[in-house]
C-alpha cells in the first residue's frame, strides 16, 4: 500500500489481506456484555494449546452491528460468520473450523425469515441493503491498534490536508460534499465550519458531541468503540479548518469502553506525532481532551454540553450568539456529532464527489441507525440516504416477528416522531422525514407492531423527557409533567376528550416557550401518535378500551372455555387467586380479583387466555 505518512512501517497490512488467518471477535459493548472478552481470552488459550497463536490472529474488533446475535465471531479467510458464540464454544471453533476446516454449523446464523442457514458475513440479509462507508472499519480493525487504522488509509486525509490544502480548501471540500450534521438537525457541516473560521477570536475549540442519549440508540458509541481514530482524525482536520488548537470529546461516562478506546487511540496518535505540537512536521498544533459527562440527556444539546465542560450545571444557554461566535468559555467553538467528524477523513481522502454520489442530492452519504423494537433483526445499520423505511424494516430488519402487523416507526428518539404504514415508502433523508412529520434525529429507529399501544408508546417517551428536562424553562419542566399526567389519565381509563385538547395546548406552549430543542420537540412523539392514531386515543377515552390490549386498567383477561383443558397452571400461578375451576374443567377468571398482570396468558400452553 502506498503511504505518504512519515512512518510507513507502522501500518499493519494484514488487516487488508483476505487470506490472513484471523478470528475476529466483536468487542463492542453489546457483545462484551455477553462475555465476548472471555471468549477472546478462551480462543487465545485454545490456540495456544495447539501452538497456533503465532499463526492465527485473534482480533478484537468494533461492532459488527448485528448486536442481537452477539457475540459475533468472524473466522477468516472465508469470513465465516458465527453468532451467539459462548466462551465454551471456543474449543469447537478451533478444533472443528481452524484445525478441521469445517464450519461449525450450529453457530452459523439461522435466518428466521428465509429459514436458511447462512455461512458468509456478507450473505446475511441484514447486511444486504446496507452500505457501510462510515462503519467500514468496524468489525475489521482492532480499534486499539493504530497500525490497523493506518493500513486502512487512516490519517492519509490529515496528511493531505496539512501538506496540500489551506483551511479554506478543507471547508470548501466539506461543504462541497454536502455533509449534513449527523446529530439530528442536519445543518451543513462545511457551512458551520465556515462560521467558526470567520470569527476572529482565539483560542477556538473543536468539540465532539458524544453524549448520545436517546433511549436504545448506540450509533455513536459503536463508532467510538469500533473506529476511534476516524473521529480523532476528523476533529484534527476540523481544528485545522477553523483555526483551533484544542479539542474536547464530550462523552457520557456510561460509555466506559468508548472512553477507554479513545484514551488508547489518543495516546497512540500523540506517540506518532499526529496529535500535539507541530503535527506531521507542520506548524499546526492540536490536542484533544476527553470530558466525561454525567449522563444528562440535555447535555447532548450543544450549549448545555459546553456549560457542562465548563463545570457548570448542564443547562442550555440562549442562542444567538451561536457557538461559532461565542461558545465554550465564550470562545468560538465548533460542535459536531461523532459521526459527522468520522465522515470527514473519508470525504477528504476520497473526495467530495465520492461522498455526494452516495445517498440523495439533499442528504448525501449514509445514515446510521440503531434499529430496534418489534423487528426480526435488530442492531446497528448503515444505509444510503434515500432508502425507504420499508426496505429498512423488511429487507434489513427482516420484517415484524411473530407474523404480526407493522404499526409505526419512531425515528429521532424521544424528540422525534412516529410514522404509520402509509409512510413506509418515503425515502429516508433529512427533508423527507421532516416533511412527513418526523425527524431524522441522530439515529434511533424503533419499530412498533400492532400489539403496541400508541398511547403507551407516547407515554414512554414523555416520561423520558420528564426525567431529562433540565428544569430551566417552566413550559418544559412543568409542561412535560402535565403532558405525562394527561397520558396517564388516558391509559388508566380516566381520560376525557378535554385531555386531548390539553395535550395540544401543552404541546403548543412547550414548543413556543422552551429555550432548547428538548422542550420544543418533547411533545413530538405525543403529537405524531395523536395525529396518526387518534382513533386509538379516542378508544381509550370514549370506549374505555385499549385496542392493543396493553393498558392494564382497560383490559380484561378471559379464558376461552373451549380451549381450556383445565390443567390448572394458570390458577397455580395467579398471585391474586382470581382463577377458579376444577381440574380437567375449564377455568374462569374473576375480573374483580384479577390484577391484570398477564401471567396467566404467559403461562397458558393452550392459548386459552385472551385479552379483551
Amino acid at each position, binding site marked *: 500500500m502506498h503511504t505518504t505518512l512519515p512512518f510507513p512501517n507502522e501500518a499493519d497490512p494484514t488487516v487488508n489481506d483476505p487470506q490472513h488467518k484471523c478470528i475476529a471477535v466483536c468487542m463492542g459493548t453489546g457483545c462484551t456484555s455477553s462475555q465476548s472478552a472471555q471468549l477472546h481470552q478462551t480462543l487465545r488459550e485454545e490456540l495456544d494449546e495447539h501452538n497456533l497463536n503465532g499463526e492465527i490472529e485473534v482480533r478484537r474488533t468494533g461492532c459488527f452491528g448485528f448486536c442481537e446475535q452477539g457475540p459475533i465471531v468472524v473466522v477468516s479467510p472465508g469470513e465465516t460468520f458465527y453468532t451467539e458464540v459462548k466462551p465454551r464454544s471456543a474449543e469447537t471453533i478451533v478444533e472443528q473450523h481452524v484445525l478441521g476446516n469445517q464450519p461449525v454449523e450450529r453457530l452459523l446464523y439461522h435466518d428466521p425469515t428465509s429459514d436458511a442457514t447462512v455461512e458468509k458475513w456478507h450473505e446475511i440479509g441484514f447486511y444486504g441493503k446496507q452500505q457501510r462507508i462510515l462503519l467500514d472499519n468496524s468489525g475489521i480493525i482492532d480499534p486499539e491498534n493504530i497500525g490497523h487504522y493506518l493500513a486502512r488509509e487512516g490519517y492519509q486525509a490529515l496528511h493531505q490536508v496539512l501538506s496540500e490544502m489551506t483551511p479554506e480548501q478543507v471547508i470548501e471540500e466539506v461543504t462541497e460534499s454536502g455533509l449534513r450534521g449527523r446529530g439530528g438537525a442536519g445543518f451543513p457541516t462545511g457551512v458551520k465550519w465556515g462560521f467558526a473560521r470567520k470569527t476572529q477570536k482565539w483560542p477556538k475549540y473543536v468539540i465532539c458531541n458524544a453524549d448520545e442519549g436517546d433511549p436504545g440508540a448506540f450509533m455513536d458509541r459503536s463508532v467510538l468503540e469500533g473506529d476511534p481514530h476516524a473521529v480523532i482524525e476528523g476533529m484534527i482536520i476540523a481544528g485545522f479548518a477553523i483555526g483551533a488548537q484544542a479539542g474536547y470529546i464530550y462523552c457520557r461516562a456510561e460509555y466506559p469502553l468508548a472512553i477507554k478506546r479513545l484514551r488508547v487511540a489518543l495516546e497512540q496518535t500523540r506517540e506518532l506525532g499526529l496529535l500535539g505540537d507541530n503535527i506531521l512536521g507542520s506548524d499546526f498544533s492540536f490536542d484533544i481532551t476527553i470530558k466525561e459527562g454525567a449522563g*444528562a440527556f*440535555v447535555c447532548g444539546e450543544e450549549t448545555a454540553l459546553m456549560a457542562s465542560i465548563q463545570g457548570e*450545571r448542564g443547562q442550555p444557554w*440562549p442562542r*444567538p*450568539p451561536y457557538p461559532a461566535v461565542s461558545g465554550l468559555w465564550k470562545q468560538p467553538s465548533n460542535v459536531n456529532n461523532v459521526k459527522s467528524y468520522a465522515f470527514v477523513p473519508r470525504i477528504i481522502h476520497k473526495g467530495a464527489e465520492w461522498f455526494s454520489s452516495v445517498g440523495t442530492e439533499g442528504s448525501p452519504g449514509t445514515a446510521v441507525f440503531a434499529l430496534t423494537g418489534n423487528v426480526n433483526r435488530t442492531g446497528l445499520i448503515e444505509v444510503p440516504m434515500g432508502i425507504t423505511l420499508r426496505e429498512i424494516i423488511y429487507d434489513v430488519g427482516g420484517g415484524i416477528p411473530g407474523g404480526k402487523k407493522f404499526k409505526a416507526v419512531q425515528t429521532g428518539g424521544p424528540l422525534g416522531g412516529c410514522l404509520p404504514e402509509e409512510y413506509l415508502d418515503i425515502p429516508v433523508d433529512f427533508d423527507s422525514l421532516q416533511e412527513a412529520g418526523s425527524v431524522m434525529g441522530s439515529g434511533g429507529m424503533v419499530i412498533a407492531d400492532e400489539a403496541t399501544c400508541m398511547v403507551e408508546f407516547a407515554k414512554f417517551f414523555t416520561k423520558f*423527557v*420528564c*426525567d*431529562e*428536562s*433540565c*428544569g*430551566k424553562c*417552566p*413550559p418544559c*419542566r*412543568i*409542561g*412535560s*409533567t*402535565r403532558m405525562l*399526567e394527561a397520558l396517564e389519565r388516558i391509559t388508566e381509563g380516566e381520560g376525557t376528550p378535554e385531555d386531548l385538547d390539553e395535550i395540544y*395546548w401543552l404541546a*403548543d*406552549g412547550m414548543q*413556543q*416557550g422552551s*429555550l432548547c430543542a428538548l422542550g420544543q420537540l418533547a411533545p413530538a412523539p405525543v403529537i405524531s401518535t395523536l395525529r396518526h392514531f387518534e382513533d386509538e386515543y379516542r378508544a381509550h377515552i370514549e370506549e374505555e378500551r385499549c385496542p392493543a390490549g396493553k393498558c392494564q386498567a382497560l383490559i380484561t383477561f378471559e379464558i376461552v372455555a373451549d380451549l381450556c383443558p383445565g390443567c390448572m397452571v394458570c390458577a397455580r400461578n395467579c398471585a391474586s387467586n382470581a382463577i377458579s375451576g376444577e381440574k380437567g374443567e375449564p377455568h374462569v377468571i374473576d375480573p374483580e380479583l384479577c390484577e391484570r398482570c398477564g401471567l396467566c396468558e404467559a403461562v397458558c400452553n393452550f392459548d386459552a387466555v385472551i385479552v379483551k
Partner: protein
Amino acid sequence: MCVVSVEKARGLQTACTTPVAEGMIVETESEAACETRQFVLEMLLTDHPNDCMTCEVNGDCKLQDLVYDYGVEWPEPNGRRHVYPIDPDPNPFVFIDLNKCILCSRCVRACEEIQNRDVWSFAFRGFETKLVAGTDQPMLDARCESCGQCVAYCPVGALYDKMSVGLGRPNQVEKVRTTCSYCGVGCNFDLNVRNGEIVRVTSAEDAPVNGMALCVKGRYGYDYVHHRDRLTRPLVRAKWLPDVEERVTEGEWTLVEVAEKRAEPTVSGNGAIAGDAFIETDWGTALDVVAGKFAKEKQAQGGDAFSVFASAKCTNEENYLFSKFTRQVLGTNSIDHCARL
C-alpha cells in the same frame, strides 16, 4: 417571560439575550408572545400554592403582578404538586418556602455574581428540579454569610427575611430611607416601619453606594434599635457625681440596677448609694465628668498620657473632629482608627 416577537425570526426570541440588529422590528406584546407568557404563568401556577391571602409578599410579588396583568385564571389542581417542608433551614435569617419557588435562579445568580459565595444552586432534573444550598445542606454549612442578597432578589415568597415573618406586609409598612450606622461605607436601605417599629430592612435599588447589596449587619442587625437594654441616656458611676443620694431621691437622676454579681448592695441600709453603682444622668452632667477628668489628667501627666481610638462608624467629618480634638485639646498624637468593624 422575556420572549418577544421579532419580525423574520423563527419563533419567539428572548429579549434579554438577543442582540439588537439594524432594522430589527420587535413586538413586545404580540399575540404569540402574550400567549406564551400566559402559558408559562399558568404552568407555574399549577405547581404553586394559592395562598396570597396569607403570603408575606402579597402586594410585592412579581408572579402575582404578572398573573394579574396577563389575566391568567387560577388553574384547578389536576396533577402533581410539590409539598416541601416550610422553613426547614436552621439559619437565623432566611426563611425558605420552596413550594413558592419558581426556579427563576435570581437567588443563585445574586449569590454567585454579586456576593461570590455560591451558596445556592439547582439540583435534580425535570419536575424534581429544586433549589438547594451547597449539596442540599443547611445554608450556613454551605458558605452562607447571611447577607440576605438571595431574599432581596426573590421575586416571590420563596425566600423571605425570617426575623420579619408575620410582622407586616408591604402595604402595611412605611419605608424610611436611611444610611447604615455600622460602618463608613454608607450603604442606604429602607427601614420598613410599622406602628413606629422597624419590622424589616429592604434593599433600595437606587441606593447610590450599594444598590441592592447589603451585608448581614445592615440587613439583619437592626434589632438593637428597639431593644430594652439599649442605653438612651448616659450612665455614670455614683462616686463621680455630686449629691447623688439627694438627686436620686428627688427623681432628677435614676439609680440603674445592672445585672451583675455584687458583694455589696447598691443601696446600703442607711440609704447610701455604693460608689460603683450606675446612675442615669443627663448628657451635660456626664460630659462635665469626662471633661473634668481629662483636664485633671492632662495637668497631672501631660497630653501623652492619652491615647485615642476612633470609630469607623463615624463619618469622615466626625473623625476629622476627633483627630483635631485629640491633637489640639488633649495634646497627643496617639490616635488610631479601627478602620474595620
